[in-house]
């Protein structure tokens, strides 16, 4: 199992549009992938479920923990962290 922490800097947080892109990328990996909102302390949620990712309520400025478990866990975590830092289709500071 691998995990990385990354700050969400999208202006409106992980709202529908960036969340769709994030989930779409997460589903390309064989490993199980989770996302945890470290600001709320709630348990990790399935990163391949859009409904779960939206319900995690990730606002801008929040740090999330991306964790993956499986054969491609290293690539999954690195790729998803880079995707978030790249803004998931939105301009970020």
């Amino acid at each position, binding site marked *: 199992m691998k995990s990385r922490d990354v700050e969400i*800097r999208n*202006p*409106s*947080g992980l*709202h*529908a*549009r960036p*969340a*769709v892109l994030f*989930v*779409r990328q997460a589903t390309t990996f064989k490993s199980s992938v989770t996302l945890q909102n470290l*600001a709320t302390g709630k348990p990790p949620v*399935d990163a*391949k*479920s*859009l*409904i*779960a990712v*939206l*319900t995690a*309520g990730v*606002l*801008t*400025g*929040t740090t999330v923990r991306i964790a993956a478990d499986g054969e491609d866990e290293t690539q999954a975590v690195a790729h998803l962290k880079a995707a978030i830092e790249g803004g998931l289709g939105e*301009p*970020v*500071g």
Partner: protein
Amino acid sequence: MTIRIEASAAAPGVAIGPAWRYPRRPTQEETAAEHDRQRSSRGAVRPKLTKAQSVAAVTDAAHRAADQLTALADRLSEAGRGDDAGIFGAQAMMATDTALLDEAIRRVRAGMDPVEAVAESATAAAEMLAAVDDELLSARSADIRDVGARIGRILRGEQPELPERPSIAVADDLPPSVTAEIPAGFLLGVALAGGSRTSHAVILARGLGIPAVVGAAGLLEAVDAATDAAVAATDAAVAAGSPAPLAIAVDGSRGEILLEPSDDDIGIFRGRADELAKRTRRAAALRDRPGATADGERVALVANIGTPDDAPRALEAGAEGVGLFRTEFLYMKRLTPPTEHEQMLAYRRVMTAFGPDRPVVIRLADVGGDKGIPYLGLPAEADPFLGGRATRLADRPHDLMRRQLRAIWQAGALAEVTPHAMAPMVATVSDVKLLLQLRDEARDDLRSKKLPCAGKMVTGIMVETPSAAIIAAELAQMVDFFSIGTNDLTQYLMAADRANASLSSLQDALHPSVLRTIAGVVRDADSAGIPVAVCGEMAGDPAGALILVGLGVDELSADAGSLDGIRAALAAVTRAELDGLSTRALASVDAESVRAIVEPYLARLTG
């Protein structure tokens, strides 16, 4: 007989047509059949599926829903409706989401009926999302319900309900899947019992240029009762199976609904529709011209915007710049303060959109105890509007104003424009000294670090406290411009809370005490040779706009949707008329008399 229902205006326009009720009410036969079905055992009515068959049916229906939604998204995307396409792309993903589909399958395995299992799972997921403390995210719960309803329809073998002829939609609220699938030209207007100005159906209506009203209490009950009465009165029509649809008229500019309008009412509504169309054509024809009176005196007409996304609409409405760029959106709904870089990107985007010849005035953040911003750690105050906010927080450790000024200096340099900024809630000379000091320190720091920094910043203040208005002569010597915020100025002059509806008569900016205060501010600004703008709601109201220009205000800043109206009002009067108008208004004793004085000038526009 005409039934009149009050509602809130949501999208302008007037429409008359048959009512299309969503969702459709079950007919008497259907209600009876449903009653029978519930009385008899379920298995007797339809063949009972095995659990494995039920799981397969739910899975198949969810995938078919996803396919339909993907096709819908593709179609909208090709039609250039990217934002709507995004909604259905997300819905397609939700249809087979584990949080919905796996939950439904779990319920089916436990013995629940497939349709019920999907409905319960969708409701549970929607309620969880609705509980998220963020408006943008919790609003998506409607999408989950909508997807659940679609899967349920597929399981029951039903078609979505859509109007069969051009109609006015009557509903509590219209889900996005329904509005998107109504064929072009079949939606004449929207009347919602619930809903809000940000409902999907209302945004769609504005985009299509059709009228919408929301918050029409009692609408559905009245429509259903009128339909029942009409059915009872025309037994023959019922026998033929096609009772005539109920006629309805909607005025989305005034917020009015008429059921079964009389011929006279229809005449009145048609007249309003013609008038509106004429006025829209006339006003739009003036857009290429800068704001001016009939005899050519220039008055700059600029826009109030709340986010960078508002910029295109303001430009389209012919805004000659931005008179008030509210920046609170950068600070709200987050756990840490915005970075300088993030702010710079937002400011630069608007500056670039408007270019070097149309200045963008950035208002420094007007935040305080009322905004509930966690990272500021502000103490709760008994009366935040008279408390620590805006400039009064400038010397606190979180450095909000310093960082914002740095971002503005950089944005101006990168957008290659002269940045304009103004501070809200100024009351004293020392407030302004602090503003100028922070501005210069921000500049010097950027320059010493060789970071991008504009050559100069045009710096102004909002005049919205009685104190600032009284010492305007001194303040005018220190800054480059004034912008009068008439909403707050009225609230503080009248000592009447803006949010207190029972005091709304004291919230009238046309009151002579407000007008005399503004006249004094303009006189002091003129002596110092600096321009005066007004950015409150008064500037966007044609009556207020005429009086303000009469008082000598140089620039009016209003929401983009108000610019056509004030441009047309100004173009219909001369400078001499405005002088006479303002002299008489200043000599009045109450707001009603002021309104009566302006009325003849506004009547010219409709004549």
